[in-house]
């Protein structure tokens, strides 16, 4: 079912992988999201991997995931007929989000100033890798470029090996999410005075924002984090955060003080039941144990950290991920499995909350199971309600129905390659 939350609002989605997630969020919230793509299909449809490893415009898992619930119309923006159609749609839209190279839409008469003349209510959000005024505004882009430019990549990986990515590209998703927030912020004053505005999202800034304030470290502490594999922290706070277990890895927050004192105590007690705790650990007041708080470690601190990490490692090697996680939940210990998608798919918490939803995709002739509501709302539930559209699936509904273009004219547009 389409959510009532933003029902009645219309968004034109002219993004590619730099922001497809924005329209997805709006579609989940019930807005009508019209994806405008070239007649050969949006570039996101070529992103591997493909469903069952069979390439095809309806089979990119990225497109399946991030276009779910949108409508699709085709428009060849090189054609003046198609541009006129898009301008007509923008006159009837509440939001527009785009991720073309900076200035491209202006150059073809679909920039903010042009469209706002006809529709001053329009909120027009441009997603850019580096902003609209940066020296790099025209740079060639791929997701990994922003991962590097935003500072995250440098901190991921092992010493002596290259900085590393994540296997699902992330920068474009953050930019799309930020575009959704920014568009909704601009919507609030529009409710008062009916005026829209233009928004720039800076994708590089979106990734810098994810660094958990580490970017203040050089200024305040004169140091910066280097990648260190399964360890985290800077000089004086370095901690092992990933431990092996029998069938994979566990992540642990082994800390004392207010944050982790009770948890570490519970972990030590658990280890002691199985003969893995040292005597000093049983006597320790973990609520005041904060080695590294003053950014340097004493010899004793180092001994305690190493001994604790070493014993945790040996303890975990006796158990599976499930066994450790189960014990963790009972004892309220700050631990989590390094979960695979298979672990997530069978997670009892997600099952109990009926998180995953099945969406029938008639084009593919099958049901697809996908992440459901990103939040549970008491009055207006949100979530995916339809599969990703085929290329131009809604040309007749939107161009014919919404804009009132006759079937003959649509045919001639199509024959001319405009749509």
């Amino acid at each position, binding site marked *: 079912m389409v959510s009532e939350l933003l029902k009645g609002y219309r968004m034109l989605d002219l993004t590619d992988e730099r922001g497809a997630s924005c329209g997805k969020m709006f579609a989940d919230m019930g807005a009508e999201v019209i994806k405008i793509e070239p007649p050969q299909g949006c570039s996101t449809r070529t992103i591997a991997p493909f469903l*069952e490893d069979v390439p095809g415009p309806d089979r990119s*898992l990225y497109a399946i995931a991030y276009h779910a619930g949108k409508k699709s119309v085709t428009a060849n923006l090189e054609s003046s007929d198609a541009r006129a159609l898009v301008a007509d749609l923008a006159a009837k839209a509440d939001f527009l989000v785009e991720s073309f190279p900076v200035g491209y839409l202006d150059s073809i008469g679909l920039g903010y100033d042009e469209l706002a003349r006809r529709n001053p209510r329009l909120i027009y959000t441009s997603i850019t890798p580096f902003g609209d005024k940066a020296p790099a505004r025209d740079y060639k882009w791929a997701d990994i470029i922003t991962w590097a430019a935003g500072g995250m990549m440098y901190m*991921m990986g092992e010493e002596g090996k290259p900085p590393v990515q994540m296997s699902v590209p992330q920068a474009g998703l953050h930019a799309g999410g930020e575009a959704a927030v920014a568009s909704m912020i601009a919507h*609030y004053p529009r409710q008062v005075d009916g005026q829209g505005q233009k928004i720039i999202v800076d994708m590089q*800034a979106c990734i810098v924002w994810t660094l958990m304030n580490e970017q203040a470290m050089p200024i305040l*502490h004169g140091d910066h984090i280097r990648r260190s594999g*399964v360890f985290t922290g800077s000089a004086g706070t370095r901690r092992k955060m990933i431990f092996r277990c029998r069938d994979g890895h566990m992540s642990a927050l082994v800390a004392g003080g207010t944050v982790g004192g009770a948890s570490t105590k519970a972990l030590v007690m658990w280890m002691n039941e199985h003969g893995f705790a040292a005597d000093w650990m049983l006597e320790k007041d973990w609520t005041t144990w904060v080695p590294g708080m003053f950014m340097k470690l004493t010899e004793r601190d180092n001994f305690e950290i190493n001994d604790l990490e070493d014993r945790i490692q040996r303890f975990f090697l006796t158990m599976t991920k499930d066994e450790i996680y189960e014990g963790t939940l009972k004892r309220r210990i700050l631990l989590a499995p390094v979960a695979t*998608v298979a672990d997530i798919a069978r997670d009892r*918490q997600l099952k109990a909350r009926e998180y995953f939803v099945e969406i029938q995709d008639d084009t593919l002739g099958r049901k697809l199971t996908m992440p459901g509501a990103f939040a549970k709302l008491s009055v207006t539930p949100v979530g995916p309600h339809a599969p990703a559209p085929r290329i131009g699936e809604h040309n007749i509904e939107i161009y014919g129905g919404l804009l009132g273009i006759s079937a003959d004219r649509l045919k001639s547009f199509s024959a001319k390659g405009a749509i």
Partner: protein
Amino acid sequence: MGRFALEGVKILDFSWVGVAPITTKYFSDNGAEVIRIESAARLDVLRLAPPWKDARPGPNASQFFASYNTSKKGITLDLSKPRARELVKKLVPWADIAAESFTPKAMRNWELDYDHLRQLNPELIMLSTCMQGQTGPNALYPGFGQLMAALSGFYYIAGYDVESPCPPYGAYSDFVAPRFSASVLLAALDYRRRTGKGQYVDMSQYEAALHYLAPALIDYFATGSVLGPRGNASDRYAPHGAYRCADEDGNERWIAIAVNDDIEWKAMLQALGADSRAARFQSKRERIENAAALDEFVNSLTRAHGAQDLTHKLQDAGVAAYPVQNCMDLHQDENLEAFDFWHWLEHKEMGPSPYEGLQHRLSRTPGELRWAAPVLGQHNEEIFSGMLGLSAAEIEQLQKENVIF
């Protein structure tokens, strides 16, 4: 219409740590009035975490806390005390939105959960966000974003191989979830404007974060295929990865490069002054299939170049490239500067302090970091006296009783 987009919006913010404070920061930086309720009896753990002003710890010296709490007001109330709860309830009718991020039992125990607060304000919108949601067998799971990022699959898919996960830095999911919670709260405000109905939002940070892994989850459910780490390999680009450049000031430097097609490949070789060994990698298929050898070859070419110079050279030739920036570099990055990303604000105790700016810019009603984060209880007098009408003597008495604390 005020100067800021969200002027007039009022938020009673019981939350702490990352996700919910970051959510309400979107509001406060855009003109909403956000009152954070804190207590020295149960400090926001971010007040206890570095980076510190002058590397000296203290509850009012953490930039970590400060960064996520700009433009907010802060009062102190020890909500474990009934009198404190009576006081905070007087603010509920004032609020459009209440936000909290404790494990689910805390607000219920204090009778400050949605069912209680809506009796005081039937149109209230309330956000509860915790690790795994308000319901279900793991609802009480305690934790932080570092663990959530592991639980929601991000650790496993990062690294060179399954033997050695290389997690994203920090509490990754803390920076995914607020994009959802802020959007949905703003949408809920609009829905209330149209219908007069407030509502309750239960956001599991786990469930929000999984949306950034959606393609891999859909794939698993459909085919059983489990996405793993793959170094910097790509199905679309080759070369694709981080390549070693010339060291600078004793620090190793790397450049990220992504080459899409033959034209870019040839342009890259030319820009790097490559020799004939490149004959081995003439087609995209060859490049993707021999990614390890290709990476070695590209590394041999980049090693002599400065990362910044090489970025200019490659981009001039039409090849996607950028230096792999460390946290030091980000402060000199000309593109962040062009977006006016870094700001210095005057903090009551820390003095001039470095803040990250906004990730977007509105043309007509731009948000801004209106003021630095509050020190503990900075706005006690303004709120208790100005809004609740308590006398100076009453405030003093409540302070003595550690109610205002």
